């Protein structure tokens, strides 16, 4: 009997990519998506824990109607519907069935069951009869597919493993979806679904063939972009605000451009040029556009002689700019700062968290910061010294602050400076006994630190499987990290390597699976147990009552 092992809400980009792939890129998606939530550094892990609120459902419902109206509008319907109704003013079950089965499979990422099809056929037929329009009925059926939990959540399913009857394996369609969402940030296409249908995806050769096909496609860029957006936490840009009286150059165009710059840089280096992952910390190769040129103080008359404002041109940071690597781009520098100042602590925490997978605990609740004082005197280093010397704070601040202090030649927007309040800014840093100087020194430090590639490997895996790696994954991750080094730290190779490993499809049976055919819950082993405190909370009671 198959069991469901995970329910992962699809993200905004996965939703957008799927709709574009299934109905074409011209479909407009204008909606407020449910908030995503970062857990264990990744939205991908959070999305496996989230449900859908009623206001969220209301939004998805309106969006689904709008997509159906567009996909089945007068112009689009010839392309969208694989058949013609006998009479466009009446229901036509045969044609509706073709449509529902075709799009149902693409949206649910598996063939529909007969009862799922029948439910939509009923909707289509009733709608057609009431409105006297076959397509109006079809719109309702499509809307019902688009708001179904099987579309809005990735329902991961496992089945008894034919090779080992005591174990489960992910079923073929779940495997296909894992591969597709990792590499394309989208649902499986017809070919991948066919590989699932035939069972080819369960064979080494069949899986490899699909992975090679997916990584050679232009869509692979979408997959890498989505992964980096999540890992580097670039989702924060929609809501970024800066004090215009302190950073007059900041505006929404700058914010959007900053995010795009980092993504373009990463895609170019790691996907197009297939370079060593660690070069993202030291490379001076990037792209700029007009809005960014002003922040980087690049005279755009010369750089942009023939391009319009939205255009990007390749650009190399000169040595004098002190910039190299993505940590010195406006995105990272402005995102991890305050509205009116830089924040070495925040930047340092994020360097550790994002690139070295080292979390920083919350500060103690009763800490007294009183000695950290006025911002109108000296540099921030002198103000932070108190943290480093205060025994309650120093444990973390000695670790978090140095990378941030090395980036202090860039203000809260990311503009270059060497002085603060009339004092020269010292950008020397000392981290884990390593001494380095400034942003370029920090980039070099990260380039050489073995935690950095290991962290990327762990992130790619966690992102793909939608859960935090545990101790059982340690040997696997360590092997993958060695293989990553062996491949010259090439990201496409790493993603292929992980997607083709059996560990990527490992089944973690969730706690208390309710078997469809039995009332006993003792049969399931539990490798993922919830970490609840011993006391019984109302929510636990609620959960228990749902068992």
């Amino acid at each position, binding site marked *: 009997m198959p069991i469901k092992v995970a329910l992962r809400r699809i993200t905004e980009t996965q939703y957008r990519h799927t709709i574009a792939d299934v109905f074409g890129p011209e479909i407009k998606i204008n909606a407020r998506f449910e908030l995503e939530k970062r857990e264990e550094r990744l939205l991908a892990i959070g999305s496996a824990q989230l449900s859908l*609120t*009623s206001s969220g459902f209301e939004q998805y419902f309106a969006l689904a109607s709008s997509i159906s109206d567009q996909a089945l509008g007068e112009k689009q319907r010839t392309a969208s519907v694989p058949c013609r109704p006998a009479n466009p003013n009446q229901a036509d079950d045969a044609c509706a069935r073709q449509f529902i089965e075709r799009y149902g499979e693409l949206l649910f990422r598996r063939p529909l069951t007969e009862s799922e099809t029948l439910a939509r056929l009923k909707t289509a037929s009733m709608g057609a009869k009431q409105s006297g329009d076959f397509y109006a009925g079809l719109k309702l059926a499509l809307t019902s597919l688009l708001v179904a939990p099987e579309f809005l959540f990735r329902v991961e399913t496992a089945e008894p493993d034919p090779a080992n009857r005591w174990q489960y394996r992910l079923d073929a369609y779940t495997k296909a979806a894992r591969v597709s969402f990792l590499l394309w940030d989208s649902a499986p296409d017809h070919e991948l679904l066919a590989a699932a249908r035939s069972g080819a995806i369960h064979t080494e050769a069949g899986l490899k063939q699909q992975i090679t096909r997916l990584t050679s496609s232009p869509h692979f860029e979408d997959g890498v972009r989505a992964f980096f957006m999540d890992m580097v936490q670039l989702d924060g840009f929609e809501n970024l605000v800066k004090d215009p009286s302190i950073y007059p150059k900041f505006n929404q165009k700058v914010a959007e451009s900053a995010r795009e710059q980092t993504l373009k840089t990463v895609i170019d280096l790691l996907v197009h040029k297939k370079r060593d992952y660690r070069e993202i910390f030291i490379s001076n190769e990037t792209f700029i556009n007009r809005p960014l040129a002003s922040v980087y103080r690049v005279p755009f008359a010369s750089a942009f002689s023939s391009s319009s404002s939205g255009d990007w041109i390749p650009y190399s940071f000169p040595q004098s700019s002190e910039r190299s690597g993505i940590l010195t781009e406006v995105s990272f520098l402005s995102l991890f700062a*305050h509205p009116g100042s830089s924040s070495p602590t925040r930047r340092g925490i994020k360097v550790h968290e994002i690139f070295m997978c080292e979390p920083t605990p919350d500060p103690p609740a009763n800490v007294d910061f009183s000695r950290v004082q006025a911002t109108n005197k000296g540099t921030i280093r002198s103000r932070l010294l108190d943290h480093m010397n205060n025994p309650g704070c120093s444990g973390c601040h000695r670790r978090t602050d140095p990378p941030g202090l090395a980036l202090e030649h860039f203000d809260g927007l990311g503009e270059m400076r060497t002085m603060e309040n009339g004092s020269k800014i010292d950008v020397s840093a000392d981290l884990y006994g390593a001494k380095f100087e400034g942003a370029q020194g920090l980039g070099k430090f990260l380039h050489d630190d073995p935690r950095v590639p290991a962290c990327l490997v762990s992130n790619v895996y966690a992102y793909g499987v939608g859960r935090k790696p545990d101790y059982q994954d340690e040997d696997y991750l360590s092997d993958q990290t060695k293989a990553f080094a062996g491949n010259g730290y090439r990201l496409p190779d790493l993603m292929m390597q992980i997607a083709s490993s059996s560990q990527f499809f490992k089944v973690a049976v*969730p706690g208390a699976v309710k078997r469809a055919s039995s009332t006993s819950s003792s049969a399931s082993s539990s490798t993922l147990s919830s970490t609840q*405190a011993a006391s019984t909370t109302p929510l636990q009671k609620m959960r228990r009552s749902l068992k």
Partner: protein
Amino acid sequence: MSFPFSRRSFLRGMLNGAAVCVALPVINQFLDGKGTAFADGTKLPVRFGTYFWGLGLTDTPTGGTRWVPSKTGFGYEIMPELESLKSVKDKVSVFSGFRAIGDGRPNLVHWSGHASILSGVAPGQTGRFDAPSFDSVIADAIGTSTRFKVLDIDASTSRQPVSYSTREGVTFATPETTPLALYQRLFGAGFQDPNSDNWKPDPSIMLRQSVLSAIKDQREVLMAASGKDDRVKLDQYFTSVREMENQLAIQLQKPEHCEACVVPTAPKETPRAATVDAVRANARALAKLLAMGLACNQTRVFNFVHTAGVSETYLAGESKIYHQITHDEPTDAKLGYQPETSKLAGMVMEAFGDFLMELDSVKEGAGTVLDNSLIMAFSDTGYAKIHSIENIPMFLAGRAGGRHKSGQHIHTTGESVTRVSLTAQHLVGAPVGEFGSGSMKTARPLTEVIA
């Protein structure tokens, strides 16, 4: 005591046939024994909302209080940080000395305080509640007859939009953050003017209902063979589907006439800004729309966030944000408090004053929307400098249709914040006997403020 006619026909008679869509101030004899419902069992149509702001108010260990009045009971004096409440003071009760009690669980900074107030349980993890937020219990009790069961709003304009409303402790509501978005949700597509003379049911709504029935058919299949946590998530999902169905069903009914409802015009799009002044202006514009949304009977329950726990608002030109200032600013030895922090706290409370005045400016029956509402306002901390969860400032505002004996200052020394939460639930007629767990479990509302 029983009545031979329904509450509605009673009101209609009283108003010579002109029914209003909310209750007039309630006279006790019409209530049942508990005072939570009319004698015929109909719930009181009172509105309920939460109002949250980050970083508490100033009440220092050295005794420099800027918000706790010295007088208790009616006629408390206005303290400096509550200056903005002056004009609506008689409709606001102040609660001081209440605390969140962790029972050994750590004080999770900028989280434990409001998680305790809303869920009744000290949380085990930042970002999660261990029980539903109680606004959802109230929404189940009083929010099912309006188009929106509950509306979530965040005025803060910073980082990720915030709501502290949750049914299962993990997924929190996605709030409206701009006046334009709130306007479109309330008065855009799907809005039916309750005062329109030519109302007709929209036939497309029935077709949309059929979309949802196809989904509900699959519920059992999905729930089967799913893990426990996933079943909780699916249950939440299907609750959302049911609420959408309810929304559609309501739209098929002729809306009741609402004398106070005047459909507003669409607001303009505003630039994103997070200064204290910008957040205040944003909050006020949102409050104005919300007040009319209530008067037009679009919702009866809301959650309003002014700024999140870690508030990122700031004074224009000041390089430090409010949150940093609360921690960094030294306590002035002479004054006994942090002057800059206190000034900012007062400014943040100005938005709360505006909020109440917006609700009070919409006349309804013999009173105002505020008179027919209950708003529980609170913060994440008491004294923010040390992340204290003692003496978290809490307020109950609005007369709750006459149930709230407002205008009092209630002071305790270290009682659980959940007593105020329970009081709020009683005041709006939620069927709740006790609230909270561990040391915060209580069955004792603050009866002083209940009529």
